[in-house]
């Protein structure tokens, strides 16, 4: 029983202003020659004419740099040697206009931060405070391949509301209670009709020609792929930067570093990347992945095989295409996947 609301575009801006009274708002904003998700200032509108953003909106629940706690060793400070939580703002916030690929990615990442054994407080508190409002893609990019990653331009997974652009109005589908609450807070209450959606969905899906081949990956033996000879060739061009991992909505690895000055300090959680040589440096000085091909293999095995085998929910990739667009040396996950998918070990 999913509510369908019609949002006249003339009423959209006013509704966003109403929302800003009860939510911190995040939306796509134009930045010279590209778009990025930013916190919207008072009166600022999200720019929904965008394709997709350079960096994914994962930073709303998983900031690139986050202070975990502070500490002081100064004994004249009454709270010396105590770990102090850093005050955070987990008041309700909403992401407006995120793409279905990025929304599905949030669900995939949640599997790591919300397990029976452990709940990551930083990620989960931010996640639970966030309402995700998606915008279906009518015009996928040339590098989008979401239709072959169990996702698609009108996919609903991970969203609380899905907006479909219908010319003079948005057709809003409330997918969760959070979504209904948001629509009400925006004053969006006109009953809607979602019959145009099916045709638009089909048209958008038909526009996507890029694809990733993964159909034979689950049947492959892990060690056959791990020991395959093609990793050296694939890894050659990689320059071990963090571009693919930072821009990827399903990447979630982080580094913990303390920043100290005199007797005061703060423990930071920063984005990290398995592509960097120091990622697996042990305290002992041993580094199990000190060679480039080991790290490149790790990234693609994690995305396309380990995650697939462990959760059986598909690959850890939503086909957003950002890594393909932004890799400085054009190391393409689709090419790698095809190589893995086609590989037959010599017995």
């Amino acid at each position, binding site marked *: 029983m999913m509510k369908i609301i019609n949002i006249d575009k003339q009423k959209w801006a006013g509704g966003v202003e109403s929302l800003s009274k009860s939510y911190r708002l995040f939306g796509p904003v134009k930045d010279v020659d590209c778009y990025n998700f930013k916190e919207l200032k008072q009166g600022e509108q999200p720019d929904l004419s965008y394709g997709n953003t*350079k960096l994914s909106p994962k930073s709303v629940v998983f900031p690139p740099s986050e202070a975990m706690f502070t500490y002081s060793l100064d004994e004249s400070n009454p709270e010396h040697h105590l770990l102090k939580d850093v005050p955070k703002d987990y008041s309700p916030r909403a992401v407006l206009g995120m793409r279905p690929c990025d929304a599905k990615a949030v669900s995939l990442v949640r599997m790591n931060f919300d397990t029976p054994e452990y709940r990551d407080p930083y990620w989960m508190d931010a996640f639970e405070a966030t309402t995700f409002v998606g915008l279906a893609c009518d015009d996928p990019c040339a*590098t989008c391949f979401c239709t072959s990653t169990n996702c698609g331009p009108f996919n609903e997974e991970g969203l609380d509301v899905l907006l479909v652009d219908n010319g003079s109005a948005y057709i809003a589908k409330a997918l969760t209670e959070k979504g209904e609450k948001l629509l009400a807070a925006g004053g969006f209450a006109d009953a809607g009709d979602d019959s145009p959606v099916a045709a638009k969905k089909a048209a958008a899906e038909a526009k996507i020609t890029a694809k990733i081949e993964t159909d034979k990956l689950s049947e492959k033996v892990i060690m056959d792929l791990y020991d395959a000879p093609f990793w050296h060739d694939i890894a050659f061009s990689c*320059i071990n*930067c963090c*571009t693919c991992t*930072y821009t990827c909505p399903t990447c979630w690895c982080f580094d913990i570093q303390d*920043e100290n000055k005199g007797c005061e300090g703060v423990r*930071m959680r920063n984005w990290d990347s398995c592509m960097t040589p120091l990622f697996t440096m042990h305290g002992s000085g041993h580094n199990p992945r000190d060679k480039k091909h080991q790290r490149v293999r790790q990234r693609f095995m994690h995305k396309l095989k380990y995650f697939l085998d462990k959760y059986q929910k598909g690959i850890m990739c939503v086909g957003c295409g950002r890594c393909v667009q932004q890799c*400085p040396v054009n190391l*393409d996950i689709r090419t790698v996947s095809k190589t893995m998918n086609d590989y037959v070990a010599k017995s």
Partner: protein
Amino acid sequence: MDAYITKIKAISERLLKDGTVEAVIGFREGTLPTMSEPCFIKRSDDVKDLVWNANCRINLANYLTNRKEKIAIVAKGCDSRNIVNHIVENKIKRDQLFIIGVPCKGMNDKDTGALQDNCATCTHRNPVIYDELAGDLVEEQTNVDKYADVKKVEAMTPDERWAYFDNLYAACTRCYACRNACPLCYCPTCFVDESKPQWVGKGEDPIDVRTYHFLRAYHCAGRCTDCGSCESACPQNIKVRQLTKKLEKDCAELFGWEAGLTLDKRPPLDTFSIDDPNDFIK
């Protein structure tokens, strides 16, 4: 440029077949219209995958660092100067290399398709070191102002300059694509990676971001050939070359120095000469 690839392939095939080299470093076709991918060809059968076009912008000298094999490398003007630098700095030996020199009239920017900024003011289109050329030498540009951008910043007031650099690095995510694409950056442990103790914060703090860029630029002083790989690698389209251009200008003015042109001299920040300018000593 199409004629170049025929020659590059012919030379590569010959060198692999007669065992002069164990591998050829070049480019193969990319999966996007404005990209190509660096590749390592070991079998003469694979030479057919090599390409040469206006998307071959990444500096291949970056892939030579500390290699032990005998290698052929496709090198345009700037790449060849970085090869000279690598030899002077002991990151590769001259006798390991067969340099396939490729005269270059410029690479295209991967987003705009227009000529890359650094190529517009290039004065070393022809390789300065090579074993065989893949094409005839081209005319070098003479009437270009390499430092027009730098002079604009030099003319700013301190406040304007602060705001300019604040803005320049605002989008930086510390992905280090610029550093990793640069042939000069080969330190086993980069200063930003130090953590016991930590030298520079690793997060988004603008002061840490600027510290990284400023210090990296200083490490490139007297060595940078303005190949533009840093700028083309940056996923956030940051004009990374602004600082290195300033240091390149300083080296030219203070030491009369251009990087990567001779195997017989070390860069000015490596050595002391009695003629070094010292009017800063009051």
